[in-house]
């Protein structure tokens, strides 16, 4: 619902108030951009004047040149797509599976109590420790990377959703019970819709976590992808490549986060 612009003449103090709001917003946006431009400018200046050695810290102009080369040769698109693909698959599997497990654990209290300590341990275990085992089990390459991604996201998904399900308003459950609802109806009509907010924050967390998973997976074992470029660039001392890949990662993560935010806005309407 958009509020229609009112043509009523407000008092002077209201005009001042609105003006102040607008000013504040402008200042925030201005300095946001300023920080970025200043950072890039300083970086470029310091490397151009050789105060900092571009061999170690790269520079904005060298990153742009590197990206240009990679776009021309088509490798940038290939590597980006590989990472994006792994991340999305891992993200989807972890979110769906983690959600379903949370539903299962909500459904059966005994099962929940049995598995509680295991989930806690799994949550605090650094998943990277499983790296070698993962490669042994599912082989190197995409499978291993996706699995790493899933392992990192799934536990937090299950834990967050389960606690959202359990914290569902007891009074509303009682209301449905007094209306003769069965357990499935309580789940479907109340528990799932009332936890939508938590689901969206899980999605937001998982956007970040799934990139951690896929990049970590690519560090372990890969022939392509942004994580591969970063490791490869580091090994041959080509920091331009490392920085370029990191830059693209930033853009991907931001794009995925924006998509989730968009989803949130659509849901809130």
């Amino acid at each position, binding site marked *: 619902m958009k509020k229609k612009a009112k043509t009523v003449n407000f008092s002077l103090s209201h005009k001042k108030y609105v003006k102040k709001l607008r000013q504040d917003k402008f200042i925030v946006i201005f300095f946001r951009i300023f920080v970025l431009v200043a950072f890039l400018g300083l970086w470029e200046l310091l490397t151009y004047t050789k105060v900092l050695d571009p061999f170690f810290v790269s520079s904005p102009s060298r990153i742009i040149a590197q990206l240009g080369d990679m776009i021309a040769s088509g490798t940038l698109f290939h590597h980006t797509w590989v990472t994006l693909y792994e991340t999305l698959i891992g993200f989807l599997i972890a979110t769906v599976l983690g959600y379903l497990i949370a539903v299962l654990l909500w459904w059966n209290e005994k099962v929940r109590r049995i598995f509680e300590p295991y989930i806690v341990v799994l949550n605090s275990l650094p998943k990277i420790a499983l790296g070698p085992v993962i490669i042994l089990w599912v082989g190197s390459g995409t499978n291993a990377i996706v699995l790493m991604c899933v392992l990192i996201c799934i536990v937090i998904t299950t834990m967050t959703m389960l606690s959202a399900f359990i914290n569902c308003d007891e009074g509303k459950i009682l209301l449905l019970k*007094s*209306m*003769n*609802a069965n357990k499935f109806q309580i789940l479907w009509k109340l528990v799932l819709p009332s936890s939508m907010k938590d689901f969206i924050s899980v999605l937001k967390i998982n956007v970040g976590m799934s990139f951690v998973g896929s990049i970590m997976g690519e560090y372990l074992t890969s022939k392509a992808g942004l994580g591969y470029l970063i490791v490869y660039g580091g090994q041959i001392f080509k920091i331009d490549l490392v920085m370029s890949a990191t830059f693209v990662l930033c853009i991907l993560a931001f794009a995925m986060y924006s998509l989730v935010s968009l989803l949130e806005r659509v849901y809130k309407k």
Partner: protein
Amino acid sequence: MNEILKFDNVKYFYQTKDDEICALDNISFNVNEEEFVSIVGPSGCGKTTILSLIAGLLKPSSGEVILDGSNKIDTKKIGYMFQRDMLFEWRSVWKNITLGLELQKGNRDEKLAFAEELLKKYSLYNFKNKKPRSLSGGMRQRVALIRTLVLEPKLLLLDEPFSALDFQTRLNLCDDVYEIIKSEKKTAILVTHDISEAISMSDKIIVLSSRPAHVKDEIKLDLKGTTPLKKREDSSFSGYFEKIWRELTNEEKSENG
């Protein structure tokens, strides 16, 4: 008048790990059709337990709860209204009041028409597609009441439905709810610790003792006036108030002493 509810020597124990707590001790009373009965008592005496027993959410430890001639509680005959309105924020007013129908099988057309009629009758039709957050506290409770009425229960259970509201809204809503219940010819049981609310709305008041609760007194009321607000002006109002007040304070004294 026909009897719709009967409590026959009902006892109820709550089980905890270290203890067995007797909440209700030989409770007996009955409610006739189209009667408005209030249950008052010191807080924590087990008023809500009584409603839960009627609604079939709990089973008596001994004794019988007989609803409409059967000791097997048919939840379809019961409408439960809570202290909080329990509206689902993500559903529109219409989707909220038809929630109970969604849970049922079979043909709903007739009941949907009835729901629409209730909305119109109690001037909430304009808010049909609004979300509950744009409604005032009093309106929200009216929506909650309609949600209950749509299922056409024989007996309404009201668990302090007004206590979360400010005084002004509360008095107005009392009148509204009373009018709705009377015009729909419903039987209602109200649990409250507001004595004047109980007197102004009820045909009969059941006074409970502190835990373990037993029926201390049953008071039949006959006040003039068509609405709870008018009934408060009746000359015998303060007499009833004092009587119940004394019974409840004695109870607290004996509890402390």
